[in-house]
């Protein structure tokens, strides 16, 4: 739920990084925290266990620039990935403007990815939000690992697409993150939409800012 403050000329938006445990959600935020100028970011808050597993959430506010005289401030949250923290995870989704799903590319984690994606759809539905209609980006993380699965397989499992019913959206739309690919296309007489995806190695910072850029832009475009 973006909040527009006409008095202080600010637009505040909430982004949530979702995904299975140990997939790299916190690492994404840590990289952003480490790379952006202290003038444009706030304090990073991590509610974590003693073993540095996220217990409730991580939080990082960043300013991404000024548009139409409004300062655009994004609040980045992660959720705890472990299955049994669902109650906390659901709370963080309240009022979300954009979602990044951080998938673990390792083949062994495919089941955990699918389970987490299903859980995301379920939790969003409980708030009455439709994931196919809000800014949503999938990040395939850990692309450097030898056991990383092919992107095609990950896409088939996690981003198979949904029917696009709205005639206004039924047009071939390029994937903002992957030149030559599409996020809305006509397949066998049916219009199918997909979330854009970004390949990443979050520990090295590869793909981290690109993911943030793609999702933030989608969020701001919903206000334009």
């Amino acid at each position, binding site marked *: 739920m*973006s*909040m*527009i403050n*006409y008095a202080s000329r600010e637009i*505040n938006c909430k982004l949530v990084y979702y995904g299975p445990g140990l997939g790299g959600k916190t690492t994404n935020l840590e990289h952003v925290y480490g790379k952006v100028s202290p003038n444009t970011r706030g304090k990073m808050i991590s509610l974590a266990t003693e073993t540095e597993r996220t217990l409730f959430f991580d939080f990082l*506010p960043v300013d991404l620039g000024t*548009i139409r005289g409004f300062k655009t401030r994004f609040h980045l949250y992660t959720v705890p990935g472990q299955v049994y923290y669902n109650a906390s995870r659901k709370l963080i989704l309240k009022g979300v403007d954009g979602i990044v799903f951080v998938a673990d590319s390792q083949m062994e984690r495919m089941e955990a990815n699918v389970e987490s994606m299903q859980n995301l759809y379920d939790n969003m539905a409980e708030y009455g939000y439709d994931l196919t*209609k809000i800014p949503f980006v999938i990040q395939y993380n850990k692309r450097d690992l030898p056991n990383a699965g092919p992107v095609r397989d990950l896409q088939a499992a996690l981003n198979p697409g949904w029917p696009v019913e709205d005639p206004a959206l039924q047009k071939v739309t390029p994937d903002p993150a992957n030149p030559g690919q599409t996020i809305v296309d006509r397949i066998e007489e049916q219009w199918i939409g997909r979330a854009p995806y970004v390949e990443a190695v979050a520990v090295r910072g590869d793909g981290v800012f690109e993911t943030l*850029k793609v999702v933030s832009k989608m969020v701001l475009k919903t206000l*334009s």
Partner: protein
Amino acid sequence: MTGAASWSFSEDHYRQIQQHLTAFLRESNARCALLVDRTGQLVTTVGETPQFDPTAFASLTAADFSANDQLARMIGEPEFASLVHQGERESMLLADVAKRVILVVLFDQRATLGLVKLKAKPVVEQLARVLEDMFNRVGTGQASEQRVLEGAEDEIDRLFG
């Protein structure tokens, strides 16, 4: 609903909120009042300037309040409309306002919990009325405010390179 609707408030509403909170601080002897929306975004701060990061504080406040909401439901209560955290020197009261925002009051030994609670009740009602007016207006013709960046697509593209 496709996603969370955005909400905005005008300078006039902002001023009304400030006035109510300023009067409340004077009457209750509390140090500072913050208004935080349920998603963790800071709406405003009135009174002494906090010595901490108010943005981080706001996100934790919303999480604290939401977690307690769930705890309330688990024990069969519809909600905990207010919460109190008492420290040796500094304390805080959190109160729900119209299910949309949370009023956070910071106070020390100069104020008593009883007085803060007593004075918080009417200010919560005043704030609820301001918010109600705000949302009613959005629903009746000011929806264009939600498209604050209308026509700014080029500017958005430039911002992200």
